[in-house]
């Protein structure tokens, strides 16, 4: 780890040496050294000196290469080998608050598939990191072309947007291999970057910071989210349909307001 600063210096030198090349009409191909430096800095901010190995076989990201709506970019994280997985982390490199979500899985959780919708501020690398129970980290990334998703004005007035916050719906889908739930929570998830154009005031940040789901009292997942999560969060996750007990959801926003709701057991049993 002592070599880290040297690596940084080298990377910076590389940036300077190649800046002439990157200005020469090269199409956006995400190989810009500045973007590599950015990820290295974020890695340091979020994971300290812990090494993160390349792990495309352990964690995969599905995201549109070009998103139609930068305020609603669908992202799916897949973990093909769920044994020993503790958590997944989602980082949107160029967003001003890049740490979009951290999802810790519990004994009733299924890390194989997790989907959510995010805001993307500018063309960016999106990194997914899988954290194993032994503490090791593996990452993969993709490049998403979308811009303006963070400052996109909210549709309604602030008060109207908060009407009905915390209302939830849960939908179940099942096939031969697995059962999946889609959780929808109403919340404007104000990110603090949306300006009221008449008053020129920014709506202060207020968003869901934690969404926790249990099944029969056992943890499915506990998600810590940030302002990158889109308004009215929609989260898709795997569940064990044969396990007993109702699904309970608890959502908490940054004002400390909390909403809870229970849904019938997926298998139909009480």
């Amino acid at each position, binding site marked *: 780890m002592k070599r880290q600063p040297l690596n940084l210096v080298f990377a910076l030198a590389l940036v300077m040496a190649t800046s002439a090349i990157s200005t020469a009409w*090269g199409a956006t191909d995400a190989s810009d050294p500045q973007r590599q430096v950015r990820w290295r800095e974020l890695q340091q901010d979020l994971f300290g000196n812990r090494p993160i190995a390349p792990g495309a076989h352990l964690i995969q990201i599905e995201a549109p290469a070009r998103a139609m709506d930068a305020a609603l970019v669908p992202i799916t994280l897949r973990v093909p080998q769920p044994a020993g997985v503790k958590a997944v982390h989602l980082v949107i490199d160029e967003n001003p608050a890049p740490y979009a979500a951290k999802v810790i899985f519990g004994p009733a959780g299924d890390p194989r598939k997790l989907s959510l919708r995010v805001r993307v501020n500018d063309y960016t690398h999106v990194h997914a990191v899988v954290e194993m129970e032994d503490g090791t980290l593996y990452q993969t990334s993709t490049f998403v072309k979308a811009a303006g998703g963070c400052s996109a004005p909210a549709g309604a007035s602030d008060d109207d947007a908060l009407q009905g916050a915390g209302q939830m719906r849960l939908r179940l889908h099942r096939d031969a291999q697995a059962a999946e739930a889609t959780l929808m929570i109403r919340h404007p998830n104000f990110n603090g970057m949306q300006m009221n154009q008449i008053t020129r005031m920014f709506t202060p940040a207020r968003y869901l910071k934690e969404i926790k789901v249990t099944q029969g009292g056992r943890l499915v997942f506990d998600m810590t989210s940030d302002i990158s999560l889109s308004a009215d969060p929609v989260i898709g996750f795997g569940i064990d349909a044969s396990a007993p007990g109702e699904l309970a959801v608890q959502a908490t926003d940054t004002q400390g307001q909390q909403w809870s709701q229970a849904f019938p057991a997926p298998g139909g049993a009480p």
Partner: protein
Amino acid sequence: MKAALATLALLLPLQCVAAEPTVAPEPPGLWSGPMVSDTPATLQGAQVIDVAGLLRLMPHRPLLIDVGPADRRPDGLPASTVWRPVHRTIPGAHWFPGAGRADLPPAQVEALLQRIGTLTQGQREAPVVVFCKPRCWGSWNAAKRLVQAGYSGVHWFPQGVHGWQEQHETAAVDAESGWNDAPATPP
């Protein structure tokens, strides 16, 4: 290159369908209404250019002026949140965040014009390109200011960074040194 531009032409309408439904009339002076809204198709005294126009201009080494606002740490953001704003722009551009506000304090207008005077080495006919992003009146206003200050080679590039990065890489920049971002809210 032709193929790339053709692809761009195909992609742009898709991108802009929602963004540019109508065209606003050109105001007589600086625009002080909503800064993110439909902009005019023209700017008297300046040339309006698209990406192809900018590419044609590039060999003349125009002064590139980005007036896009800087992201400020939102009120209500928990202290623990990792906040690391970055501004990416057309490589080589000088970034004057918020310089397109109609209510820019006179001292800042003066500082802006002085700095641009230095960057153009006092040549009023030097090619200058002003931009931020689509539906951004800030770039229209800043270009207007330069026209009013006597610059004859002003180009307004309304597609801005969004249009550029469709096909070209951007670069992360710091705000022009000594330039203080205009306050986000009226005092």
